[in-house]
């Protein structure tokens, strides 16, 4: 089979509008600014109809992959999500999390091959919640949407991925979530075989995507590896292997499309640094990690603290300087929420 024919199998048709957004449970704690940035880009910049449903819950992916929640329970929770989407009048499901993306596809694939399981889950959902649902017409990860609109974002770019000090494109290494690229490789754009979903954004926005030997290696977040503290040595060993592999290419930053990957590649750099006094970036610092929404936000000129870069353990300020982005360091930890609370307190005092 020729490469072009292969690539055709991995190139998805992405709907242009009317999305039902499924937030990630862990991401709202790790990098809460990313999802807000995604919604702002779609609603304000692109003018798309995307519904952020407050009734949505965890897909139970972490518990399912850790053998804590049974398959039927997980499928029923997912069926409720489909039901919420049907109720809201949408057919294009956009999960923020790659594990949810893999899970939704796994459920639909199971039902396709075993219709009796779908019937059973419909019954279980009806008995437990009195809900019914239609299956989504399309499931695409949020990074697929940004990839789909990358050229429009490029047209609005205020800070292209260029080192303003040298005029050279920024060198970017990517990490694509395993649950996005490896469980159902043909459901994402490029899968693990042609990992273009992030490198396509990087190229469009002026950066240079750098291939590295362990590009497709797990980041180390594998749930079983991490949940038990005694096993975390396996988790961090995977991340260490990736950092060792990418460091010789002197990347300016890492971009990831998975909530857990971005978090672990960020936090584990600090942990490895503390354990071994070994740092993988320039000048004894770590390599900054961005989610694809944060990368898009910076390119579009959003305030670094408004998109949540202060939540990163590996400092992003060296990257901001390279991109020539001006920022107010004093406002780094001055959250809007704090200001609102202070205003409320002042009003009460008065």
């Amino acid at each position: 089979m020729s490469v072009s024919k292969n690539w055709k199998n991995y190139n998805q048709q992405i709907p242009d509008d009317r999305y039902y957004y499924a937030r990630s449970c862990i991401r709202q704690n790790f990098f809460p600014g990313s999802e807000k940035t995604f919604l702002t880009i779609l609603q304000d910049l692109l003018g798309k109809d995307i519904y952020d449903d407050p009734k949505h819950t965890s897909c139970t992916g972490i518990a399912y992959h850790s053998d804590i929640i049974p398959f039927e329970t997980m499928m029923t929770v997912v069926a409720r999500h489909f039901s919420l989407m049907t109720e809201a009048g949408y057919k294009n499901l956009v999960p923020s999390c790659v594990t949810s993306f893999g899970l939704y596809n796994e459920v639909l694939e199971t039902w396709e091959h075993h219709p009796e399981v779908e019937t059973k889950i419909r019954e279980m959902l009806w008995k437990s919640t009195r809900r019914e649902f239609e299956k989504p017409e399309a499931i695409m990860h949020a990074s697929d949407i940004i990839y789909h609109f990358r050229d429009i974002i490029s047209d609005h770019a205020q800070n292209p991925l260029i080192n303003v000090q040298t005029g050279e494109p920024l060198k970017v290494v990517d990490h694509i979530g395993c649950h996005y690229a490896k469980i159902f490789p043909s459901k994402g754009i490029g899968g693990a075989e042609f990992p273009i979903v992030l490198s396509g954004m990087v190229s469009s926005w002026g950066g240079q995507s750098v291939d590295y030997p362990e590009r497709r290696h797990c980041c180390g977040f594998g749930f079983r590896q991490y949940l038990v503290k005694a096993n975390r040595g396996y988790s961090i060993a995977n991340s260490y292997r990736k950092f060792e592999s990418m460091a010789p290419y002197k990347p300016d930053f890492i971009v990831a499309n998975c909530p857990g990957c971005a978090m672990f590649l960020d936090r584990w750099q600090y942990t490895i640094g503390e354990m071994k006094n070994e740092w993988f970036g320039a000048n004894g610092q770590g390599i900054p990690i961005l989610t694809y929404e944060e990368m898009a936000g910076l390119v579009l000129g959003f305030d670094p603290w408004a998109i949540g870069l202060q939540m990163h353990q590996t400092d992003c300020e060296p990257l901001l300087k390279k991109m020539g982005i001006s920022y107010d360091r004093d406002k780094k930890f001055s959250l809007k929420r704090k200001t609102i609370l202070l205003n409320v307190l002042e009003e009460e005092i008065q």
Partner: protein
Amino acid sequence: MTHSFGYSISQSRETNWDKLDHRFADKLLDLEPSVRLCVGCGSCTGTCTAAPRSGFDIRKVHTRFRRGEAGAFVAELEKCMFCGKCSMVCPRGVNIRNVMDLMKKLIEA
């Protein structure tokens, strides 16, 4: 100063098949045929007198020896006290004490 988090970075378990040397393992199988009966249950490691204080892992040493990585754990074999409890508890009747002794002699020869 390095910091401890209660776990460390696991060493890679990658095996380079081009660098394996099965000569010691083949010799061991000739000298102590009962070693073929091992099912890797780990009872030997679980009851080992030396294990709690030294981290000696008979099952791991045996596995790597059989795999052809004999040179990787010369120092590890020094931890064995030859008490023979491993042989007593082996459900397959492998003479593990003799296996340890033979491994040491083969490597040192």
